[in-house]
């Protein structure tokens, strides 16, 4: 495996959320296994797609990488630095280099702050600019994301969803980060607006050499924007490959079912497609199935799948999969 130019390396990342009972004497009675041993790396300048259905742990993975949640165990190397080992001022200094764009452009902008304050805040917090310099930078950032400089003094509620997401992008760009974690950045937007924001993200990547971790449930959009893609199911990555490999030759039965379930906007194609319909729902992450986590819904599961956790193997260059039967 070539690991040149790696910007971010995640090793065996685990995040469990405790479930507590009792009012005064709280004791832990269990844990939500949100992320359970996830490893991957992201190269400089690439877009790494992380897909999965709701509750699979993709958002928690993103937030744990940025240390918005502290991991239960595992390591996150940003360059040479292990983010899980640093805290306080040291961590804050590292945060300059990694920013986040959130899913909900309505909830992620403070309604009492003007757009100029929202975008300018990271600049003052990190002592990068002051006074009129902040104003200048904000105006520049607004123009980069395609908003008029006249919008600077307006409040978030005066904007449409797509425009708010542009404000969110401008805020993320303010510190000139290397890595941006995009957590479902377009899923709250209308179809015609989604394309606007995705095109903007692609342009900015080219212009500033950004690296994206693109978290989404929309497989078509992830295919469009990513160079490599990982598929998550119930807290673990089940398959990871380059975009063309993953979509062209999916190996894991879950990836295959997931891809077959995505509707294609073409009636002629739809007529001929074979759809793998999975039975039932995703099991609870409080008590995940033994062995392979997908076995309860897997159409080809055998005995071994319940007994042994499948190894994470590289079956062909850059194509990793965790399944006994591949």
């Amino acid at each position, binding site marked *: 495996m070539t690991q040149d130019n790696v910007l971010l390396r995640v090793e065996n990342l685990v995040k469990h959320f405790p479930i507590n009972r009792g009012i005064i004497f709280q004791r832990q009675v269990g844990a939500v296994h949100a992320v359970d041993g996830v490893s991957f790396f992201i190269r400089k300048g690439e877009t790494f797609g992380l897909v999965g259905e709701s509750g699979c742990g993709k958002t928690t993975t993103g937030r744990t990488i940025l240390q918005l949640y502290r991991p239960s165990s595992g390591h996150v190397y940003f360059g040479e630095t292990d983010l899980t080992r640093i805290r306080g001022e040291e961590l804050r200094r590292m945060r300059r280099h990694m920013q986040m764009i959130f899913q909900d452009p309505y909830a992620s902008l403070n309604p009492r702050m003007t757009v100029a304050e929202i975008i300018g805040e990271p600049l003052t917090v990190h002592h990068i600019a002051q006074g009129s310099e902040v104003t200048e930078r904000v105006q520049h950032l607004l123009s980069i994301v395609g908003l008029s400089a006249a919008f600077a003094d307006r409040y978030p509620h005066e904007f449409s969803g797509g425009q708010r997401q542009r404000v969110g992008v401008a805020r993320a760009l303010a510190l000139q980060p290397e890595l941006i974690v995009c957590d479902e950045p377009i899923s709250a937007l209308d*179809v015609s607006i989604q394309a606007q924001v995705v095109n903007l993200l692609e342009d900015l990547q080219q212009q500033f050499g950004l690296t994206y971790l693109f978290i989404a449930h929309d497989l078509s959009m992830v295919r*469009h924007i990513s160079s490599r893609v990982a598929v998550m199911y119930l807290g673990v990555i089940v398959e990871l490959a380059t975009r063309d490999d993953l979509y062209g030759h999916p190996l894991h039965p879950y990836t295959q079912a997931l891809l077959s379930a995505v*509707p294609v906007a073409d009636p002629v194609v739809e007529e001929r497609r074979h759809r793998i319909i999975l039975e039932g729902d995703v099991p609870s992450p409080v008590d995940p199935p033994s062995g392979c986590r997908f076995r309860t819904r897997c159409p080809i599961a055998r005995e071994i799948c319940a007994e042994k956790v499948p190894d994470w193997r590289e079956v062909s260059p850059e194509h990793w999969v965790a399944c006994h039967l591949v």
Partner: protein
Amino acid sequence: MADLLDVQGLETQFKTRDGVVHAVNGVDFSLKEGETLGIVGESGCGKSVTMLSLMRLIPTPPGTIAAGRAIFQGHDLLKLPMEEMQHIRGARISMVFQDPMTSFNPVLTIGRQLTEPLELHMGMSGSQARGRAIELMQMVGIPQAEERLNDYPHQFSGGMRQRVMIAMALACTPQILIADEPTTALDVTIQAQIIELVKHLRDEIGMAVIWITHDLGIIAGLAERVMVMYAGYIIEAAPVKELYKNPLHPYTIGLMGSLPRLDSKDRHRLTSIDGLPPVMYEKAKGCPFAPRCAYVFERCWKENPPLMRAGPEHTVACWWDVKEGRAHE
């Protein structure tokens, strides 16, 4: 086949603090028996309001159905007294909503909510209705149907809840099922389950389906005919294969270009549509899409194009002939 439903000139408006919002502006369409019609559009295009108007579920005030008629089995749904409407709603035309959590009563068991329409519309006794409810739950693929009747809505997962919703809608074997984005809140593997279920039940019962969505992908594999709505107008309508092969309205073309496809060969830039969908405080003087349109010319600002024939079953509301690259006469 005969038209099961015929809607003409439907207009619905809402009074708001900022003025009267014209949500639906003269919608004409018909639905044949057993047909599946897809209605596509972005949020605020009037697709849901059109259906809620037909069901007479528009909250009045602030909403009013300002004009139009909707003939269903000899009755005009828009003029029917509310008591008679109640015999049609849920019995002969029923509706499935987007959010299966908010469309149930959280303090009643699923069993109670399923048996209510059966007792009300079909005059069944308590035990008859319970028996039928179990059948319905099994029909939509809910395991341990009998025990689960005693559960409350929150005890079901999102996909299961939507199945119960469908069971409830089908309780009285309606002639028309209106599905308003029923899979938008669901994961893609669960969405596939629900779509398969509706297709299967449609073919079994032989009902007509109106499926509202913003997802051009879902419609492609489901509908026979598709209408595209924008700003309260139908701007294009055609049989499904014709529409996808040969979209004629610049908005339809834009929508299709803004979708990345799972099966596209090479990576190309998405064609985005600039600007935002409008909020209609008055009826459009020109074409409502003109401010965002790439082909706009003089006439578009002055006259709103009506739906015009573009093929045997293809209608489009646009002054520009995209294929010929010139204006229509």
